[in-house]
């Protein structure tokens, strides 16, 4: 595929992610941090986000599995996940975290279980989307194009 087609494909895809609320304008902040001195910044920070989020999701599952659920500990984990999701622009994940924190505050186990399901669902969705986005970017660059600023 030529550069123009690849770029259009990438823009169409990224536009859909913003439109559907998977990503918000914070993702542009990450793009702006990528330059010649930091050429792989977006990939690096996104990968770190994946690593850290999956660790937190595991911790959350473990915490909910306990006989006596430690709501404070759970809240701390959700707070972390909310924070990092917010920093990379993973809007849907961030929003579920807000609901999750409310359930923690209410000490509502059923609510927390539902939220964990939802947050995992949204996380793996955005992970998939981001991986696709980054793959399209890589293809474009390999063909000689440069990554545009989204939205």
């Amino acid at each position, binding site marked *: 595929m030529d550069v123009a087609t690849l770029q259009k494909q990438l823009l169409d895809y990224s536009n859909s992610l913003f439109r559907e609320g998977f990503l918000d304008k914070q993702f542009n902040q990450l793009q702006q941090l990528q330059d010649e001195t930091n050429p792989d910044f977006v990939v690096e920070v996104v990968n770190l986000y994946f690593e850290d989020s999956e660790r937190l999701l595991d911790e959350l599952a473990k915490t909910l599995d306990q006989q006596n659920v430690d709501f404070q500990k759970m809240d701390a984990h959700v*707070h972390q996940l909310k924070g990092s999701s917010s*920093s990379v622009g993973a809007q849907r994940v961030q929003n579920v975290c807000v609901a999750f924190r409310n359930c923690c505050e209410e000490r509502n186990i059923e609510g927390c279980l539902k939220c964990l399901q939802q947050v995992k669902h949204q996380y793996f969705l955005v992970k998939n989307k981001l991986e696709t986005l980054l793959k399209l970017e890589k293809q474009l660059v390999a063909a000689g194009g440069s990554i545009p600023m989204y939205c």
Partner: protein
Amino acid sequence: MIQMENTSGHQNSSHRQEKPEIHSQCTSCSSPEAPETKAKPKILLVEDNKINVMVTQSMMKQLGHSIDVVNNGVEAVRAVQRRSYDLVLMDVCMPVMDGLKATRLIRSFEETGNWDAAMQVGIEPAVPSSDSILRPQRMPIIAMTANALSESGEECYANGMDSFVSKPVTFQKLKECLEQYFP
């Protein structure tokens, strides 16, 4: 242009040495002062979230600043004991010790000239307190808040913070903050 600083954004508490730029050497000066240096402001970031550290550090780098990073309030107090900072960016919610408490301890030092309050909670001073004879200068401490109920602007001010930046941290927010304190 290759930057000399390592900005991989790793989370380990790193204390980078600032390299002051020496713009003019006053050879005829009889003053005991060191040659005139135009040193960059010394900035400390106190943040436990790895992703936030990476993003904030890269933003500061783009703004022309290299920063020291620590991950909780206790480490922040220790860092401040070791060197004087021109600005502290303090996350509010952190494990071990939160940003509000760390700020209170730092302000106590600035007001009294000693680290007694810190010692009371188990933080041994890095330097003997006899060194801090002069009253230390108040350093700007900027809270980084997550807009949670427990992190209101009022509470930040009440604990001695000078202002706050709401998360997620953006390039623009940091730029405005720096412009305010380093015009």
